[in-house]
């Protein structure tokens, strides 16, 4: 671990990524301490202000402090990203290993399921889901989980197939090791490391998707501050003030840079062949 950190710190972009990620996570976690204002407190008189000493990023149409909203929005973003990616990873890993290690017919069925899900445009699936259960943080998370499962599942399947053909798997089987133990003890640890890197690089995509859903009015419930809803507010207010869009974009760009560079750096460290068979 320390070794990895040390090696990342030797790669300037990796270091930049690490710093950004730490910075953003810390600012989201400590939003309650850092944020100068209540993110949902209205102040209609001071609405639509530009950046000033009082409001670092200005205020939105309800006079709420954008800087505070951006900080709190980080919590939403990270919540969405971590919960949905963790769940998608969990299910994707399970199904992917099953497909990769199981019998051919099961593999075929799971792959068919993956392809079917993937064949929907994400937004169409999101629309249908939102229409079904209404827009909320949970819906966003659910949509992301379902649409990400095939991606991870496929990677895991390919990895599992590769690992399966490795000699050590045969060695374990010859020893009489059960399939579940092989999957759990011998394959999972080999699959999960690279996958987490892949997933970390997906975090920005997930956050951007949340922004997209907010744009279509299908994001989180008001008044929860999220980067997506800030961006969406910014979109409607674009002719009044550019600041909400800027405020919403800054963390998005930073977190993307952060996770991508950190992920790439880790990937180069661990397995350069990772992205090949997505």
């Amino acid at each position, binding site marked *: 671990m320390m070794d990895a950190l040390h090696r990342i710190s030797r790669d300037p972009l990796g270091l930049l990524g690490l710093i950004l990620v730490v910075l953003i996570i810390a600012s989201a976690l400590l939003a309650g301490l850092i944020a100068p204002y209540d993110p949902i407190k209205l102040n209609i008189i001071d609405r639509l202000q530009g950046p000033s000493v009082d409001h670092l990023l200005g205020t939105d149409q309800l006079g709420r402090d954008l800087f505070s909203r951006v900080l709190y929005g980080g919590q939403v973003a990270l919540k969405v990203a971590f919960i949905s990616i963790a769940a998608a990873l969990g299910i994707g890993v399970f199904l992917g290993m099953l497909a990769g290690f199981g019998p051919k017919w099961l593999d075929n069925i799971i792959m068919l399921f993956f392809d079917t899900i993937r064949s929907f445009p994400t937004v169409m699936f999101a629309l249908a889901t939102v229409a079904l259960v*209404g827009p909320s943080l949970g819906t966003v998370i659910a949509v992301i989980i379902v649409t990400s499962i095939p991606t991870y599942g496929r990677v895991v399947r390919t990895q599992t197939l590769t690992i399966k053909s490795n000699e050590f798997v045969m060695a374990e089987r010859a020893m009489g090791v059960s399939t579940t133990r092989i999957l759990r003890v011998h394959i999972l640890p080999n699959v999960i490391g690279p996958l987490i890197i892949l997933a970390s690089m997906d975090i920005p995509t997930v956050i951007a998707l949340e922004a997209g859903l907010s744009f279509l*009015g299908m994001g989180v*419930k008001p008044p929860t501050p999220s980067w997506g809803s800030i961006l969406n507010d910014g979109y409607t*207010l674009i*002719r009044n003030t550019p600041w909400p869009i800027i405020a919403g974009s800054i963390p998005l760009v930073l977190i993307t840079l952060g996770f991508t560079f950190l992920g790439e750096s880790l990937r180069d460290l661990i397995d350069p062949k990772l992205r090949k068979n997505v």
Partner: protein
Amino acid sequence: MKVRPTVQTGVNQKRRQILKATGAIGVAATTGAFSEVIYAQGKKILKIRAYGDLRSLDPAFSQGVIDEEIQSCIYSKLIQYKPGREWGYDLDAAESIEQVDATHIKFKLKAGIMFTGGHGEMTAEDVKYSFERIINKDLESTNAPDWGTLREVIVDSKYEGTIVFDDAYPPAWNIAMPYIVGNIISKNAWQAAGGKVDTTTPSVSGPYTHKEWQPKQKTILARNPDWHGGDAPFDEIHIFPIDDENTAQIAFESGDIDCTRVSLGSVGNLKASPPENSTLEEYPSLFYVWVGMNVENEKMADINLRKAVQHCIDVPSIMQASYFGAASPSTGIIAPGLIGNRAKSNVPPEMNIAKAKEYLAAAGMSDGVSLTLDVLNKAANVTTAQVIQATCAEAGITLEVNLHESGAFWSLGDSSAGERYKDIQLILNRYSMAPDPSYATAWFVTSQKGIWNWERYSDPEFDRLEAAAKAETDNSKRDEMYQTMQSMMEDSGAYRFLTHEATPVIFRNTIKPAFRPDGLPLIRGFTSA
């Protein structure tokens, strides 16, 4: 005189130069089938935005303003809305028209109004066909209710006829004859087409003909050379469906369209620094926006709670936050300028937390209560909901805002689709409106419960008044009746009226537009400046 502004022609040349200079930018080949070139110089083209796309060219099936904007250009009516700030009408196909008694309207058509496509001259027979087919049950026209109590049209002579109602129906002058169901079509052509048409039309009689519909792209109208009223002012009219208001404004600024409604949020900026060569005009609007409360919901059944909510909502704040100060608070559901508009509401627009708390105490909810507010997921609604949420919190009412996409939202109160209507507590709603008060009150009668009356408000007196007012021909009495009805709604606590919004429009000075008093464009009335 050129209608396309010179600036824009310049833009176009510049654009082409750039394209030629940069090469094809990686795009190859065109899609073959395209034949016409309509960029010919010297054509007068009006380019205007509509907020949605064409759905039908059949008056019996047209769906509201979007279709009507097109149909009113290609069909003739007995009377047309008069452009300007005051509601009124001009004669169109009718040479004369008069209300002879409560249930009879006599008209005489102008001679020589020709239908295109060789379908001959417009006669009273065509009027009869046009109006009666709408109320014919077999046709299943969605617009039948607009004709109210219409019974029949009697053909008196080639050009003369009488419109006969079962009961008095004053709205015929406001929302029937000059509106969707007032379009006169060629009986001949329609019967040849099988009795109804879709997005094409076999024959027209207005200043323009329907030239082409490019779905989700534009509708093109071309000058009708045979129009009885002389030469229409434009060679072509291009109507662009653009739902996003930012885009619409950008399209205007970049010169792609000549006239559009702009968002209320832009009004301030546009006023402060108006784009060159253009005019911004503000019109009131007929829309009405209110917060409804479901009187049958277990929690909301207590009138004190409903009254508390009424007092928690600060309309001026909403006007600022959601409408950028470009709209004013409303007193009810009938907009200023229409019969029945109230000067003042019973509950003042400003919030009164103290009073709200009193009502809460009376309802035994001093410790606070949590409620839900259902909202359609459009920006202004979401903002409004957040303001309401914030002010309600001050009185101890915790509001959970539920967003819905349009399909789900519009079925919320539908009692034929499951039990969801029972869960409605607070709902932020916005209905559109035609310029007759009956159009507004019709949704709040007992029989509309579970259809459009989502508050499930019910009062026999209201129902009685609604029926009577519709048939009242004395305008001052009508006015009084509608005012009373709105007071009853407000006093029930089930309604907190917010606003009628506003319609700011912007147009290029190269054209002379024509708007209804509510700011909707009367495209056939547009001329070049």
